[in-house]
């Protein structure tokens, strides 16, 4: 299939794959977003809890000074967190009363938001790996600031997505693969009858006009098309039939009176009869060729049967041989000694070759030879020893009633046109050239040859 008409299966597969990728990406994005929001609120709660912890252990001494007595476990936890958890207690004047570390004291004292209300804040310390999130509240006349650093929420979200993908891909990828497979297989099996239909439709030709495409077993969507094709074939067959019958009737109606006329002239004697005989011969030829042309026009040849070109050549030569030997003409078949098979219509090919032979015999002098050469590739040459055909007349000789070789002879001007149309119906060509040493060479190319006949 070409690029412009992509296959249904490929299209379905691509689109399904795209949908799955989008779905997975959207799910991962959603998970990440929700994860970040959850992390935010979790962090806020953690900060508030941290602040409450500090507040619980904050006391005002009898001298009015603030005192923080953290239990040893908490102290150790703060000290060993490596700066991940910070706190600072500031008095009403903003002086740091106590802090988890001197760095924490400096950091928090410098960046606390103003205002009396509890607030969350975010610090971006210079040289740190990430932001520090903090919370400040007021208790017993002091300000308590707590913070968590280092923990990177993007990293957290990433790990969440990663985890989602790790877990999620376990089932999304197989599901996607199975869906793709089922989809393409469904299409493929539904379309398989179409491939068979194409083969059957391709085999329908003028000789097999009765064949119809089977509608059974096809997907419902395709059945109307096949039914329409079958109806079209019915109409075509009728048209063929009609034309065929007409040309057959015309042949009968024309030939019968000619047969009577010919027989009547044959029964006569005397010198004037020779002229009449020539006239009726010419008329017979013309009628025969016109009927042949009419039939070629009415119904295309069935060129699908195996034909041995050597047998065709033998038949054609045998048909013109009596005429040739009477004129002391030598007829030779040369070239391939064995059969050369092509796909074609044997009787039509024999007629074409007879026309070429008659053409050669008529337009050359008595006593000269005519040679047929057969080549293995399905090429037939008819070579004569006559005057040849001038280059400017060569195209004209194949036209209907185009009498390139003068008006001499009994030709109706249709013989070579029939040759060309027969060649064309076989996907071949016919051309005329010079024989070295004088004479014309008609080359009928009908190849390609086939290896073995099928029947």
């Amino acid at each position: 299939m070409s690029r412009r008409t992509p296959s249904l299966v490929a299209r379905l597969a691509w689109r399904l794959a795209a949908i799955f990728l989008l779905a997975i990406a959207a799910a991962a994005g959603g998970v990440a977003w929700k994860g970040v929001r959850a992390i935010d609120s979790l962090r806020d709660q953690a900060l508030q809890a941290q602040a409450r912890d500090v507040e619980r252990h904050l006391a005002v001494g009898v001298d009015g000074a603030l005192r923080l007595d953290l239990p040893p476990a908490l102290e150790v936890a703060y000290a060993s967190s490596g700066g991940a958890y910070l706190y600072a207690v500031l008095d009403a004047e903003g002086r740091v009363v106590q802090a988890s570390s001197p760095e924490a004291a400096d950091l928090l004292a410098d960046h606390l938001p103003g205002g009396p209300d509890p607030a969350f804040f975010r610090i971006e310390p210079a040289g740190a790996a990430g932001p520090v999130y903090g919370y400040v509240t007021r208790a017993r006349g002091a300000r308590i600031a707590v913070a968590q650093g280092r923990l990177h929420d993007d990293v957290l979200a990433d790990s969440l997505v990663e985890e989602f993908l790790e877990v999620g891909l376990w089932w999304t990828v197989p599901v996607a693969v199975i869906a793709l497979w089922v989809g393409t297989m469904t299409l493929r099996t539904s379309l398989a009858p179409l491939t068979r239909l194409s083969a059957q439709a391709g085999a329908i030709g003028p000789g097999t006009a009765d064949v119809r495409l089977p509608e059974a077993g096809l997907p419902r969507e395709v059945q109307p098309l096949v039914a329409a094709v079958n109806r079209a074939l019915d109409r075509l067959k009728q048209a063929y039939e009609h034309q065929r019958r007409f040309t057959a009737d015309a042949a009968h109606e024309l030939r019968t009176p000619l047969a009577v006329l010919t027989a009547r002239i044959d029964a006569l004697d005397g010198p004037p009869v020779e002229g009449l005989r020539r006239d009726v011969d010419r008329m017979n030829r013309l009628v025969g060729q016109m009927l042949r042309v009419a039939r070629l026009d009415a119904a295309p040849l069935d060129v699908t049967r195996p034909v041995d070109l050597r047998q065709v050549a033998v038949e054609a030569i045998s048909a013109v041989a009596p005429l040739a030997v009477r004129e002391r003409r030598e007829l030779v078949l040369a070239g391939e000694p064995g059969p050369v098979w092509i796909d074609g219509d044997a009787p039509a090919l024999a007629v074409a070759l007879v026309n070429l032979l008659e053409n050669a015999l008529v337009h050359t002098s008595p006593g000269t030879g005519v040679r047929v050469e057969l080549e293995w590739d399905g090429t037939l040459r008819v070579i004569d020893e006559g005057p040849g055909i001038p280059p400017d007349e060569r195209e004209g000789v194949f036209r209907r009633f185009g009498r390139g070789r003068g008006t001499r002879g009994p030709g109706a001007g249709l013989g070579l046109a029939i040759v060309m149309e027969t060649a064309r119906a076989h996907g071949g060509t016919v051309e005329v050239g010079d024989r070295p040493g004088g004479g014309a060479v008609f080359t009928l190319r009908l190849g390609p040859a086939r290896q073995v006949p099928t029947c």
Partner: protein
Amino acid sequence: MRALLIEDEGELAALVASAAHGIGLAVDAVESLEDARAALAAVEYDLVVLDLGLPDGDGVSLLRDLRAGGNPVPVLVLTARDGRDDRVAGLDAGADDYVLKPFHMAELLARLKALLRRPRGPLAMRLEVGNVFFDTVHRRVEVAGRPIVLARRELALLELLMRRAGRVLTREAIEEHLYGFEEEVGPNATEVNVHRVRKKLAAAGANAEIHTLRGVGYLMEGPGS
């Protein structure tokens, strides 16, 4: 010898019958399949000339019935239809030859003679081409009234050529008839045989000739045919 002519075109039938009479054939002419069937049932003909398009049906059906009934009478189909399928149908149904209308009477008579020359049972047969005579029963050949001597294989070859006089006999057909399956046929065997026969005929003053169609076969013809 007696022939049945089945032809609905009365004038043509009369002309054919009169010409056939000239070569020693008694002709019964009928114009329909029905009459033809009646005639065939009553008389044993040596030859049937059958037109395919008849008013009460297709001549091919009659031909098929004849052959189905085991009647081996030679049948020449005469028709204005040259549809390729018709020809195949006619020959498949058992026609021995086929002549397309319009035709020259000489051509038709030559074909009829050729059909009568065909071997059918133990018939005494005398073949004749020009001044060459062949007695197929006694295997003797005369040229211009004088006997000539031919070898066994030369006789067989000449008989084949004379039975098919006026028409091409392919080399393959000759080899098939003249040599047994187990016999090794040299590439020039037929050529050599033809050459010998031709020489003997010419030496005896025969006016019939064996023409060579190189690559195809041979054709024997009498003078002015």
